[in-house]
């Protein structure tokens, strides 16, 4: 790991945002021989307001939905220059990945470009003010899954299983990471960086603003996401799935739900909490 910092202070993330933590550490692991592509979203906006940048590696943002394609261009380009060992890392939000950027990502996976694609998953469109994305979990309030007499639940669709979808693309490496489980996180980033081809990582990204908890609780809440089993940690190497963290027994999902304002309306809705628990249990029953 590199002692230098490649992502520096002075960025404009909300106090308590997990995204800078993620980015900083990924870059410390990857080192200076790294090209970064960033989709439009919180990270891009809080880190590069002209004429300031928090990045010390070559960095590019072009649009919201096309990071994977932009990365393909860089891959082709640097290969032609003989730069065979530089890393290309995409940082893109869940919206930029699971929704509007899925096609570009899928295309890149088919082509097999040498890119590590990291989706930082704060589970909504945060940059535009907490709208639901396909990665928003079932039952979460967002500004486009409003709670009211006609909607007691919040988002009614389940979280799109993006990691599974990428695994179905037969890419060589896919994993989930959570910085709250730091060693697991570090190991996977290192491993992913060592593999060629398209690699995909779903990185949980706590967001006090959108999840509605105190900024100081970000890492704590993220820990709960995994300890309850809601955000399992695993990796899939060439199709082989392996759980990398097991909590036994798992903490009840209610403990995760009750600490976040986005689930406030569910606090006493036991039916829905039970349903969520059941879904989590059923997932784990397979592994």
């Amino acid at each position, binding site marked *: 790991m590199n002692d230098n910092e490649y992502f520096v202070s002075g960025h404009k993330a909300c*106090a308590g945002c997990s995204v800078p933590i993620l980015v900083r550490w990924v870059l410390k692991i990857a080192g200076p021989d790294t090209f970064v592509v960033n989709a439009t979203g919180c990270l891009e906006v809080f880190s590069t307001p002209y004429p300031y940048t928090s990045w010390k590696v070559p960095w590019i943002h072009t649009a919201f939905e096309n990071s994977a394609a932009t990365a393909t261009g860089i891959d082709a380009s640097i290969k032609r220059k003989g730069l065979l060992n530089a890393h290309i890392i995409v940082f893109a939000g869940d919206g930029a990945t699971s929704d509007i950027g899925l096609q570009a990502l899928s295309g890149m996976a088919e082509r097999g470009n040498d890119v590590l694609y990291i989706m930082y998953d704060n589970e909504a469109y945060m940059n535009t003010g907490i709208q639901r994305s396909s990665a928003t979990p079932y039952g979460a309030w967002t500004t486009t899954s409003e709670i009211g007499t006609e909607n007691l639940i919040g988002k009614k669709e389940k979280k799109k299983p993006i990691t599974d979808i990428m695994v179905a693309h037969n890419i060589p490496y896919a994993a989930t990471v959570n910085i709250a489980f730091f060693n697991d996180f570090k190991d996977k980033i290192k491993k992913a960086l060592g593999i060629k081809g398209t690699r995909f990582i779903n990185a949980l990204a706590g967001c006090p603003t959108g999840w509605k908890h105190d900024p100081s609780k970000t890492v704590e809440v993220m820990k709960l996401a995994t300890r309850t089993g809601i955000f399992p940690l695993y990796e899939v190497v060439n199709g082989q799935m392996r759980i990398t963290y097991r909590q036994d027994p798992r903490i009840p999902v209610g403990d995760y739900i009750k600490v976040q304002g986005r689930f406030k309306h569910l606090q006493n809705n036991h039916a829905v909490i039970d349903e969520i628990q059941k879904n989590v249990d059923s997932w784990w029953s397979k592994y």
Partner: protein
Amino acid sequence: MFEIRFHGRGGQGAVTAANILAIAAFNDGYDVQSFPFFGVERRGAPVEAYTRLDKKKIRIKMNVYTPDAVIVLDNSLLSEIDFLYGLKKGGDLIINRGGVEKQEQYNGYRVSYVDATSIAIKNKLGTENSPIVNTAILGAYVKVIKNVKLNSILDAIKDNVTIKTENNLNAAIEAFDNTVTGVF
């Protein structure tokens, strides 16, 4: 036309304060506008919001450059930002602060203080670390500036603040009662 600028931090409710003031003023017979500073700043960062009142139709769509009143919702901002910028000579400055102070740079303005933070905490608005002071500060506003009625503010709070409505009303009234104005 009367223009008010609110200073707060992202997430503290400065924008809501500006909006409620506009609604109250409209009910008092003004034409109104309110809007936030259109930035990309995030929670915690200093933010601004504005209200315009006029007895005739407000047609302009431009920033507020020379406010008639400036309201500071968070006293930690006092050392951070140039909150006096553009304030008209003789204009009002309302600061959320426990206790008064004499400050050279306030000369030429009418300065008022209200301990909106304590009032908010007392009324269980927000948390101790991040109290929501916007309704309290509006109580102070009507006390000091008087172009909008206290009752109109209270009505606007009733209509637009759906959680802890009672507490907010109390906070506004308490602030109204506990705002000190003068040359210190």
